C-alpha cells in the first residue's frame, strides 16, 4: 500500500517484496539446535533482527501517521531556544511522535470548563482511533490493555474518569472497539484517594508522572534512588581506585545510563552536577 501511495514503480515494488518476504525460522532451544527440516516459512511480515525492518515498517505506516497527524491539533508552546524573528515569539507544536513501532500523541490548551476539556479529549480520542484504524489497514495490531491515556492535573480536576476508545485489530487479528488503559498522575487533585495501581509512575516511571514534582512523591523517591546510585559509585571508586581508563569510562557510562532520563526531563542543579 505504501509503495502504491508513494508511486513506487511495480518492478521496484516486486524487488522489495522479494527481499522482505520468504523468510523461514528455526527455533533453537537449550535442549539443542533446531533442525532445518523443522523450519517454518513466514507468510508475511518483516524479518526480525534485520537492519531494514524498522525503516520498512515506518515506510509502510507513513500514510497512517500522516492522516492522523493532520487531524491532531497538538500542544503549542512558545519556542524558548530560538531567537524570535522580527521581535515576535515563535511557537512550535508537539503532536504525534513516533519511534519505530511506538507512538505517542499530545493534545491540549488552556481550558476552564468541563466542556472544553471534554472537547480536547474527544479530539485526542478521534486521532488515536484514526491512527489505530489506519494501522489496521496495513495489518498492524494494537494491544488495548497496554495502550495508555495520560492527562494533566488541570484536566484531572475537571474530568475524573476519561476513557480512550480504540477500534483496532487485537492480537487475534479481530477488529474490536475496546477501552485503553487510563493512568492517573500521583497528584491527588480531585480529593479522591489516589490508586497507586493505576498510577502513571507505575507504568512509565517517575519522570513521566504528570503531577510531579508538585504533589506526588514519585520524583522525590526516584531522586533519592539516583543519589544512592551516585553515592555508591563515588564510594566504590574511592575504595577500589581503578587505574584503567576503560574501567572508569565503563562505570561512568553505566551510571549515566541510569541518570539520562532524569537529565533530559529535569536539568541538573549545581549540587547534582
Amino acid at each position, binding site marked *: 500500500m505504501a509503495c502504491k501511495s508513494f508511486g513506487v514503480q511495480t518492478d521496484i515494488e516486486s524487488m522489495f517484496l522479494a527481499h522482505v518476504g520468504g523468510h*523461514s525460522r528455526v527455533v533453537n532451544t537449550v535442549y539443542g539446535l533446531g533442525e532445518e527440516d523443522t523450519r517454518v516459512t513466514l507468510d508475511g511480515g*518483516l524479518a526480525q533482527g534485520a537492519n*531494514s525492518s524498522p525503516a520498512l515498517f515506518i515506510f509502510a505506516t507513513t500514510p497512517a501517521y500522516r492522516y492522523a497527524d493532520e487531524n491532531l491539533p497538538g500542544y503549542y508552546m512558545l519556542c524558548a531556544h530560538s531567537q524570535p524573528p522580527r521581535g515576535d515569539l515563535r511557537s512550535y507544536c508537539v503532536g504525534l511522535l513516533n519511534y519505530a513501532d511506538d507512538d505517542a*500523541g499530545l493534545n491540549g490548551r488552556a481550558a476552564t470548563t468541563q466542556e472544553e476539556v471534554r472537547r480536547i479529549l474527544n479530539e485526542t480520542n478521534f486521532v488515536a482511533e484514526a491512527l489505530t484504524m489506519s494501522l489496521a489497514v496495513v495489518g498492524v495490531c494494537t*494491544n488495548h490493555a497496554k495502550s495508555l491515556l495520560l492527562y*494533566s492535573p488541570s484536566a484531572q480536576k475537571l474530568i475524573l474518569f476519561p476513557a480512550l476508545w480504540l477500534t483496532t485489530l487485537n492480537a487475534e487479528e479481530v477488529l474490536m472497539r475496546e477501552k485503553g488503559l487510563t493512568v492517573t498522575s500521583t497528584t491527588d487533585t480531585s480529593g479522591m484517594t489516589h490508586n497507586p495501581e493505576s498510577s502513571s509512575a507505575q507504568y512509565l516511571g517517575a519522570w513521566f508522572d504528570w503531577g510531579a514534582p508538585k504533589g506526588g512523591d514519585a520524583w522525590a523517591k526516584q531522586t533519592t534512588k539516583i543519589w544512592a546510585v551516585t553515592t555508591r559509585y563515588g564510594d566504590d571508586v574511592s575504595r577500589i581506585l581503578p587505574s584503567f581508563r576503560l574501567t572508569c569510562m565503563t562505570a561512568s557510562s553505566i551510571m549515566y545510563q541510569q541518570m539520562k532520563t532524569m537529565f*533530559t526531563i529535569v536539568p541538573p542543579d549545581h549540587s547534582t552536577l
Partner: protein
Amino acid sequence: MSDQQLLPILTITNLIFAGESPEIIKLEDIVPLMKDLKLARPVTCLDAIFKIVDRADRTKLTLVCQEYGLLPAKSFGFIPGGSCEWPIECVASVQQHARQEDNAAFMFLLDATSAYDTV
C-alpha cells in the same frame, strides 16, 4: 580476504541486491536470551551477509525517503539523525508546560503487537 575468496560473496551480494536472495540466506535462527531465571526473550539471528547487504539497503532507502520528504517529520527511530532523546524531551516539555500554565492536556501511547510480523 583475497579477491578470489570474495568472489562467491560478491555473487550472493548481487543476488540479494537484485531481489533474488538464496533461500538459505533467509533462514533465521531463533535463540533464547534469558531475561532472568524464568523468562526468556527470543532473539532472531540472521545471516551475516544478508545483514550487511540489508544495512546498505536501509541506508539508501532512508536517505532517499528523507530527501524527498516521504517519512513523517516527527518520526525519530532508525533514521539518519534520529534519537530517542528528542521525543522524550518533547513529551517532558509538554508535561512541564501544562503543569506550569495549568493547561488541560492529554497524551496517548499506543502499543503495537508483534509489529514487524504483521506489516
